[in-house]
């Protein structure tokens, strides 16, 4: 039965998170944008305490094998949307399991999950990060050069390579007892089939944070480079099978990463939606204050250019949000959602950029002035169309799905 009512359980959570966004994020938004690489500890500690009080290890509530309908990903999407509405950069500093944990959850054994994820339940806030991108490859993750070689005597994996654009890498490795998940090949000749992920814990010798990037936006979030030089991790830190299976192009390692994307892309899309909503709300508020309320229900011929723009933004925003919710709803209900999650990401990435760009344009000198947050949000927005698969990569994923093509048929 088609239903657009927010589940009661999620509505309650949403209200709580909204209070955090209003009181702990917005007031410091500008400060952390202008003080890049400073860490919003007040927000982090609060979120950590609150999450612990609720008995969770991260925002993504694990519901286990509980009977009845599952809401985990729907709740997460709603929370992320609201936090990102508060501040898209600070949101990325939310402690607890994020992308790294998502990979552990998706591909790890029960023992690995316990060993790596229990740290999030401790006294202090802990972070994780995902290391995929390398200097010579971004979206083309099958071209990863980082290697993992098994030292059979010591039963250790030896990792070598350089990773860049690691979100929260500094916090995961230097500001907390966290971990990173590193993508590397165990057989360079095997292509995607040789791709595996490895957990590297903070303070592991041979793993070094080498650079902190200066970015266009989301400046409250650290983005680092990490160099692995004969970095040894225990044999048990590999996620998934150590065997390379190439029969029937079964690329299990790579598929593990792609399956993680089915879960994470709608969440990144939710983040885009939160930012877009913040922008549209502020734009409407500023216009109304200046005597330009938006009139709905009129034929286009009677609308002003600004009204047309705002109404179009609203259509884009709402329709993209429902795509996101549908993708996570499918996730919660065990329905395959590769198509929907990429659609959501494509659309949300487009929408947040169109909305923030148009808002700055419409408000003219006020839009461009750092006195207001519109210009910051314009800068924050761009990343949504880039990370977790650029808009183009996601178009490719959507295109392959609707055409029934393999990657070799549509490059």
């Amino acid at each position, binding site marked *: *039965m*088609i*239903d*657009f*009512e*927010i*589940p009661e359980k999620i509505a309650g959570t949403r209200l709580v998170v909204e209070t955090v966004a209003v009181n702990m994020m917005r007031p410091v938004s500008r400060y952390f944008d202008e003080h890049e690489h400073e860490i919003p500890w007040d927000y982090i500690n609060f979120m950590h305490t609150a999450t612990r009080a609720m008995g969770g290890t991260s925002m993504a509530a694990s519901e286990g094998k509980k009977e009845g*309908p599952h809401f985990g990903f*729907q709740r997460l999407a709603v929370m992320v949307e609201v936090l990102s509405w508060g501040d898209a950069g600070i949101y990325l500093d939310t402690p607890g399991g994020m992308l790294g944990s998502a990979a552990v959850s998706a591909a790890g054994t029960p023992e690995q999950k316990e060993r790596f994820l229990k740290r999030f339940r401790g006294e202090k806030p802990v972070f994780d990060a995902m290391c995929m991108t390398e200097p010579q490859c971004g979206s083309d993750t099958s071209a990863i050069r980082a290697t993992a070689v098994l030292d059979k005597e010591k039963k250790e994996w030896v990792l070598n390579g350089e990773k860049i654009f690691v979100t929260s890498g500094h916090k995961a490795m230097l500001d907390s007892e966290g971990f990173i998940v590193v993508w590397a090949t165990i057989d360079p000749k095997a292509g995607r089939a040789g791709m595996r992920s490895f957990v590297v814990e903070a303070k592991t010798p041979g793993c070094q944070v080498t650079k902190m990037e200066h970015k266009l936006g989301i400046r409250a979030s650290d983005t680092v480079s990490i160099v692995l030089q004969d970095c040894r991790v225990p044999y048990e830190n590999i996620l998934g099978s150590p065997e390379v299976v190439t029969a029937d192009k079964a690329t299990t390692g790579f598929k593990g990463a792609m399956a993680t994307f089915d879960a994470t892309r709608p969440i990144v899309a939710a983040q885009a939606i939160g930012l877009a909503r913040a922008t549209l709300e502020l734009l409407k508020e500023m216009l109304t204050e200046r005597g330009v309320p938006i009139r*709905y*229900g*009129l*034929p*286009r*011929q*009677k609308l002003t250019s600004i009204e047309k723009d705002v*109404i*179009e933004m*609203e*259509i*884009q925003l*709402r*329709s*993209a949000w*429902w*795509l996101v*919710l*549908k993708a996570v*709803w*499918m996730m919660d209900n065990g329905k395959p959602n590769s198509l*929907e999650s990429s*659609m959501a990401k*494509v*659309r949300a990435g487009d929408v947040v950029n169109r909305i923030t760009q148009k808002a700055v344009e419409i408000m003219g000198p006020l839009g461009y002035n750092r006195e207001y947050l519109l210009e910051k949000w314009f800068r924050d927005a761009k990343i949504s169309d880039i990370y977790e698969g650029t808009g*183009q990569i996601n*178009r*490719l994923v*959507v*295109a*392959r799905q*609707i*055409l029934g*093509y393999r990657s070799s*048929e*549509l*490059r």
Partner: protein
Amino acid sequence: MYSFEPSDEQKMLIDAISRYATNDLRKAAHDAEENKELPPKLISKGWELGVLQASIPEAYGGFGERSAVTGALAAEELAFGDLAGALAVGLPGLFALPILVSGSEEQKQQYLPQVIAADWKAYTAALIEASFDFDPNELKTTAKAEGSDYILTGEKTFVPFADKAEAMIVYASLEKGTKAFIVPKGTAGLKVGAEREKLMGLNAIPFFKVTLEGVKIPKANLLPGDFAPVLDSSRVAVAAMAIGVAKAAFEYSRDYAKDRDVFGVKVAQKQAIAFMLAEMATEIEAIRLLVWEAAWAIDNKKEDASQKAYLAVTGAVDMAMMVTDRAVQILGGHGYIREHPVELWMRNGRGFATFTGLAMV
């Protein structure tokens, strides 16, 4: 609780409609457009699916309950077959549904059974007026109270099947707002144009200008309810049909692109085309959810249902134009030839900006 899946009952209805849309409507669409006529048997067969009948409660001769969501699902599926066919099959709804939504108890009892009990008969509605900035909430056609009657004066355009209609709903300004009036055929002063209107698309449907020269009808013929829910319903219906047409255009151009060779590969293997198709599919799905949301808001009597219906139809208008235009583009020169249906869908696509009032759910 969020759900994006139709009920089992809705799925069964959609299945039945889908067979009719694919096997009957789609196959007849080209000739109907060229010959400027839909075969009456085709319309009867669609009527027998009982979409409208299922929206009318038993008390008035039907066998169900109106649901805008179900209506939107049905409208999309019918329009996927053929828009002209979908509008023709749903034509009696233009008369019955406003009465169901905004009519008095007496009006429901008097009119609804006769519309749905019989075979398909032309019952229609006259909303659109010929001005570039036509606004359903500010009609130039007026209604003035005179004793126990209303006098309707004005000119309407795009009135489907007006020549054969047993009765029609005429929308007119009464004091400040739009109101609906029941006007039976043959009422003095009601003049249906001598010739059919010639439009860019929908040639399979006979459209007429209707002139109201002091049409006198009893006060009992005024629908007492508000116009807003009627307009919302029409906006959702038109938006849902836009999705159906867009889906048809998307699928046809996708299949063509997978079949057609170019530079040693299939057209669809070129990113320039594949990305167009990816965006079309994304746009269709996004706007479909917006339309479902609006329909759901209507069914659940949400306060902002009107705004949602407005946003849905506005989004659907742009989506349909974008998708149908691209479908023609993907077929290239072949898309411009009337042997392929995409040019018809492109003409339909542009029409959605103007079609509010021609469908109801």
